[in-house]
């Protein structure tokens, strides 16, 4: 990511402070308005505890003179997140782990007389394979008796999409891209199957909650103190934890999840391809890698196991879920699986399309892997090879790409039900299209297949 100097586009809603870039470094300004809460966060030991246990992003306090705007109390320098991802790009278990993190943090905050004042899924990022709360200003000193102000937000950002994914269709995780502040509960209640009313946690936190929202929508109500005991508040968090825990989704052979079992690759050819990719990456020595069309991440791991921060992007939520489960099981630190469609990448959303960045704005990747992908783009999606090359040249500095010719059974399958309108789809045509945008460094046939592997450098960088 090439940061632009000044305030970060998505950091303006909370008057407590904001993030900004200065001379290539990221800082967080803490405003005077947040002073008592910040002091409490530090003096109560909550910040140190959460940071020590890897639940809250680390930071160091800097000279106040670095402040970007008037009204600063402190300036912090937070640890950098290697790649910013968004909840609508996460697999089911990633969102579930982020929800559990949020509740775990809230419980610890309550134990020290504080509370999360927001429960936005955008405040969670995956760092070293684990979810991490990245907003140091999310805490407030919470007097006894105050209900949880972020209860609605938690239900909209976490519980509703998780319930929809688990109980209706896992692809509904993408709904978050349409609704910046989480899935509206009336919409979730409408979409969820009727039987979810018989699950107490979903009946209450989604169905009845939605009804209560509707009932008080336009009703002016008298302000009256109605305290909520700390015990009842803990009971509420416990109930939400139970609701999240009970939701589960396991991938069963969807589109690509069994892909490696179906390819025409022999075991040896796959191993060979893995060694060839490893060789090319060793030469390119990238600082980060995007594996586009990563499936369950076999080739992404060639990069991530060499200690290169790697994003494994795939369109299939089942493949990404499998990938994430493996990452979690093996405590992989450098791999981030995400759901995404390369032919329709995440757009910039929110205010002025700038609050959440598009996928391409989060690039360019130092190196991009596009293995067994080009036939899906050119033949499956009618994308001219020149356009593919132009777009990839913008998305990365170096490229490792596999050309899959028409003789390959995967391409024959794509062409089986349609007219072949791709006369230029052959190795020469591919090279001609890519040479306009890339300098081809290496070209190697993959023995035992008709495929060719290339290493290239973008002419734009």
């Amino acid at each position: 990511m090439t940061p632009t100097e000044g305030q970060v586009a998505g950091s303006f809603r909370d008057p407590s402070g904001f993030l900004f870039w200065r001379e290539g470094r990221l800082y967080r300004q803490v405003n005077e308005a947040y002073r008592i809460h910040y002091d409490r966060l530090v003096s109560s030991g909550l910040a140190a505890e959460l940071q020590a246990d890897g639940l809250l992003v680390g930071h160091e306090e800097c000279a106040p003179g670095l402040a970007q705007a008037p009204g600063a109390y402190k300036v912090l320098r937070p640890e950098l997140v290697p790649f910013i991802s968004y909840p609508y790009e996460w697999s089911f278990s990633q969102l579930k782990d982020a929800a559990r993190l949020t509740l775990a943090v809230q419980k610890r905050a309550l134990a020290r007389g504080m509370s999360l004042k927001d429960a936005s899924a955008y405040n969670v990022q995956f760092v070293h394979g684990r979810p991490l709360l990245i907003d140091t200003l999310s805490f407030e000193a919470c007097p006894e008796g105050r209900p949880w102000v972020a209860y609605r937000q938690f239900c909209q950002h976490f519980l509703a999409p998780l319930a929809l994914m688990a109980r209706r269709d896992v692809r509904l995780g993408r709904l978050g891209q349409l609704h910046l502040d989480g899935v509206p509960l009336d919409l979730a209640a409408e979409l969820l199957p009727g039987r979810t009313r018989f699950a107490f946690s979903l009946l209450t936190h989604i169905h009845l909650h939605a009804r209560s929202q509707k009932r008080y929508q336009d009703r002016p109500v008298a302000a009256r103190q109605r305290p909520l005991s700390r015990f009842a508040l803990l009971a509420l968090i416990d109930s939400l934890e139970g609701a999240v825990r009970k939701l589960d989704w396991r991938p069963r052979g969807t589109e690509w999840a069994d892909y490696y079992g179906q390819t025409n690759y022999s075991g040896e050819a796959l191993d060979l391809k893995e060694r060839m990719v490893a060789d090319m990456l060793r030469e390119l020595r990238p600082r980060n890698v995007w594996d586009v069309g990563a499936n369950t991440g076999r080739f992404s791991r060639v990069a991530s196991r060499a200690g290169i921060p790697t994003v494994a992007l795939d369109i299939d939520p089942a493949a990404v879920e499998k990938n994430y489960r493996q990452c979690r099981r093996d405590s992989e630190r450098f791999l981030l699986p995400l759901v995404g469609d390369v032919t329709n990448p995440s757009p910039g959303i929110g205010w002025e399309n700038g609050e959440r960045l598009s996928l391409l704005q989060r690039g360019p990747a130092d190196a991009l892997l596009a293995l067994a992908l080009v036939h899906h783009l050119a033949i499956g999606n009618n994308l001219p090879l020149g356009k593919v090359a132009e777009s990839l040249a913008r998305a990365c500095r170096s490229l490792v790409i596999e050309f899959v010719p028409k003789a390959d059974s995967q391409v024959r399958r794509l062409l089986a039900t349609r007219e072949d309108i791709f006369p230029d789809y052959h190795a020469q045509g591919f090279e001609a299209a890519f040479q306009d945008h890339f300098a081809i460094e290496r070209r190697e046939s993959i023995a035992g297949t008709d495929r060719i592997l290339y290493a290239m450098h973008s002419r734009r960088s």
Partner: protein
Amino acid sequence: MKILRHALRMCGLVLAVSLLFPRRVYGYIDPGTGSYIFQIVIAAFVAVSFAVKVYWNKIKKFVAGLFSKKNDAH
């Protein structure tokens, strides 16, 4: 039995919702009136089962403690 318990819980909830009023809150996000009122109701409601859970765990711990002490003695 399960349905009966479910129906009782629902009646309790509806009754509780109808008895409550909100209060003014401060914060940069809107907690939402309906969500705020509902939270107070549902929290009071789940607190009962939470209390049972907490005490049940304490009893289990106590009993487990008794047995482990016995084992130590042997």
